[in-house]
């Protein structure tokens, strides 16, 4: 029985050690990413402006050629080449080459950064697992545990995207930076020694509800980073399109990011994919509340902010289907929705008294 278990001190100490070690490795990854950006800046990338001027000059749609290659006479056919084209009304701008800027040295540092991130992720994940073993329960009983799991999942999701060969390496630096902030906060202000749960948290719904909540938060976070960069990149492209002349630093950074359209699509996909899971999280929470408190919905502060977050993301999805709200406005809504998620996570736990506030700060 979970409750009879005694806290295993040495495992707990090992977990702490692993978390601190992961922070050290993340710091190395952070510097490697900085090096990637610094060396990448030596490259000359000005493709956005070129693409925009080409469009303004009325260049024709990409020419279509029939591409059939025959290999060694035995008529092995390649796929016919598919030409893609953005919908009318969107800018056709190529994606930037990434932080490394296509330079060999930058790319080397980038690869080092990713390898270090993988290592840090493994160390951090073991730290979370050790914590779970030390308390013999799900490691989500207080904010320290939420925070460490949260950043582990966010990095895991990012590495998952990399593994799936998605173009996300541009996210490396912002992600590693914020993961360090998150862990720094967790190990200083939110640190709670490992221990067991109060009876109200001792339920299998904890596994279901809290794990999905953390997962949703971590992936929404990745979406939010994409959205934020989209806004910057979109301003940059707008400036170029209207003949503006961005500063050298902005140019160097922005040119290496994916195009605004790609960033927007990326964050939409991420947010849209998580939204049903977030819906499920709230419903699972309601079922749990029904068992634990005798009502499945009682407008408790935590419930209210989950609901606000949910409506916020629903508004975002709607905005993307509403004329006049696509693009930047929808992006602002997505950021507001994520801010609501964050407030629910930190704000409600710390400032608002709620039935959920036993999640020890």
């Amino acid at each position, binding site marked *: 029985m979970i409750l009879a278990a005694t806290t295993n001190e040495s495992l707990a100490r090992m977990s702490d050690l692993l978390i601190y070690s992961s922070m050290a490795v993340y710091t190395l990854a952070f510097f490697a990413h900085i090096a990637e950006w610094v060396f990448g800046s030596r490259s000359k990338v000005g493709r956005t402006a070129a693409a925009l001027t080409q469009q303004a000059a009325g260049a024709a749609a990409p020419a279509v050629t029939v591409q*059939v290659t025959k290999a060694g006479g035995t008529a092995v056919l390649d796929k016919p080449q*598919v030409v893609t084209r953005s*919908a009318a009304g969107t800018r056709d701008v190529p994606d930037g080459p990434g932080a490394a800027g296509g330079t060999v040295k930058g790319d080397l540092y980038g690869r080092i950064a990713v390898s270090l991130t993988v290592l840090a992720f493994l160390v951090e994940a073991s730290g979370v697992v050790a914590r779970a073993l030390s308390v013999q329960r799900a490691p989500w009983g207080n904010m320290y545990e939420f925070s460490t799991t949260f950043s582990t999942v966010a990095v895991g999701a990012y590495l998952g995207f990399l593994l799936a060969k998605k173009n996300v390496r541009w996210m490396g630096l912002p992600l590693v930076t914020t993961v360090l902030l998150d862990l720094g906060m967790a190990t200083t202000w939110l640190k709670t020694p490992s*221990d067991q749960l109060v*009876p109200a948290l001792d339920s299998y719904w904890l596994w279901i509800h809290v794990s999905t909540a953390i997962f949703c938060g971590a992936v929404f976070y990745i979406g939010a980073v994409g959205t934020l960069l989209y806004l910057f990149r979109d301003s940059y492209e707008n400036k170029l399109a209207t003949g503006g002349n961005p500063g050298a630093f902005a140019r160097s950074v922005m040119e290496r990011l994916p195009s605004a359209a790609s960033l927007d699509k990326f964050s939409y996909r991420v947010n849209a994919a998580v*939204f*049903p899971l977030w*819906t499920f999280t709230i419903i699972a929470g309601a079922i749990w509340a029904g*068992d634990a408190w005798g009502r499945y919905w009682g407008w408790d502060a935590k419930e209210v902010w989950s609901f606000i977050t949910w409506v916020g993301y629903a508004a975002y999805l709607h905005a993307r289907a*509403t004329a006049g709200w696509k693009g930047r406005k929808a992006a602002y809504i997505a950021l507001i929705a994520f801010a609501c998620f964050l407030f629910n996570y930190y704000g409600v736990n710390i400032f608002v008294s709620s039935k959920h506030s036993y999640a020890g700060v």
Partner: protein
Amino acid sequence: MSKTDTTETERTGDEAAGAQLSTAPQEETALGGPTLGVVGWVRWFWRQLTSMRVALILLFMLSLGAVPGSLVPQTSADELKVAAFKAAHPTLTPLYEKLQFFDVYSSVWFSAIYILLFVSLIGCIVPRTWQFVGQLRSRPPGAPRRLTRLPAYTTWRTEAEPEQVREAALAVLKERRFRAHTAGDAVAAEKGYLREAGNLAFHVALIVMLVAFAWGQLFKSEGGKLIVEGDGFSNTLTQYDDFKSGSQFGTDELQPFSFTLNSFNGTYEKGGPQRGTPRTFEADVTYSEGGADKKAVIRVNEPLKVGDSKVYLIAHGYAPVVTVKDGRGKTVFHGAVPMLPIDNNITSTGAIKVMDGYRDKNGKKEQLGFTALFVPTFAGAGSGTMFSQFPALDFPVMALTGYHGDLRVNSGLPQNVYQLNTTKMKQFKIDKGTGVAQRMLPGETMTLPDGAGSITFEKEIKEWASFQISQQPGNGLALAGAIAAIAGLTGSLFIQRRRIWVRAVRGADGVTVVEMAGLGRSESAKLPEELGDLAVALTAQAPPTAVPEPADEPAEDPAPSGEADK
């Protein structure tokens, strides 16, 4: 930035091909009011209300409106907190009361927002459903003239006859469960109708959930009952300490059952930094629905379910047993007195009230009252604190202060069982302790001065548990709605609705030109991939011929319109 070279006709061609790929309402571009009198205005208003833009604004207002309820205490959640807030903010209170900030979620304005939203939702779903049914019964629209303009495009030349290619394309597409038909020189196909179905199901499910919620509110009942170990409860209105019900609830709908609390067991963390944190709470009960007695354990996350009703364990505390004797040695009170915990270590306060039967040493009828402070684990004499050090019964101590006089229980005002109204009472002077209160260990007796009698703190200390008994219909419906909502949403967000066209015409040089293009509701990386796969499948029956000289084929217009339009 739209393409400057897109001519008007081409754009309309694209739009026709993409039309009805979703059932989203058309945006009203002109916001000016109508000129058609009342009916016109009503229609205009209705169209506004059911537009996406207004739905979006209402969603915004709904989330904004929910905020104050999380920051201001709510009557429905905690009346005591509301009272404390009102006392602390005398200037804000009247304003908040006017704005219904203490009852946000049942306020007029919050209800107005969500009712408007749901009216908008219904006004949106009904026409969308008809439109969708219409789309299901009609065929995918024919190919636009210029397939090169679509988001994904491919082309090749083949020796196969155009009719042959079209037939093959039809077969390939149908095999992949596209709805396909041949229209003129091209095959038109569409797939992913489940997206729209899922979206409609999701929105309908939201309405189902709202109805279930409202139903539950109207017919629910909820009451609290504090029970000391050994005592019982039967589910009738008079037995409740407090009781709330929805406006449509009839008291005869209370589920007939009864239960007895055999024992309550709490265990607490013994050491470490979280010493004292509760680990288990268990209430052992025997219950009966009219038939045989059954045993059950109620825990915090595990209510007892009896028919439609659920019995939840809400709180617990201690109920020391005391015996009060009057001046002549006659027992006038004997029983367990529940004490109200005031901190996490269950330092508790309470009142012992002896209402009748007591006579003082002169035989005069009087009432007795004691205020009690009970700690399950005493810090030790001289520690300077009377607060409990641990929640379990390790070193129980009770401090009592006695009063005699009139308890004022019949003054007409409701009385708090944990507090004594001492306005009409006189305090006993006590020789031990502080002179006012006396600290007692279990088994000890305090003698009241002037032969006024005695009070004994018995060795046996009982625990009490309080329960909430709720009955709420509509939960099953709400759950069904929730599951349907998630399923619909998943379909709506993960399924891509897309159209594919395959055109095969004989080129100027007599060789067949195959063109394939795809269009999705939203741009998706999957669409070009799928188009590529389909093209590969089709090349099996329409093998490509050699690449012609570039001069033979103008890249911009591979299908000369003269032939395409025939």
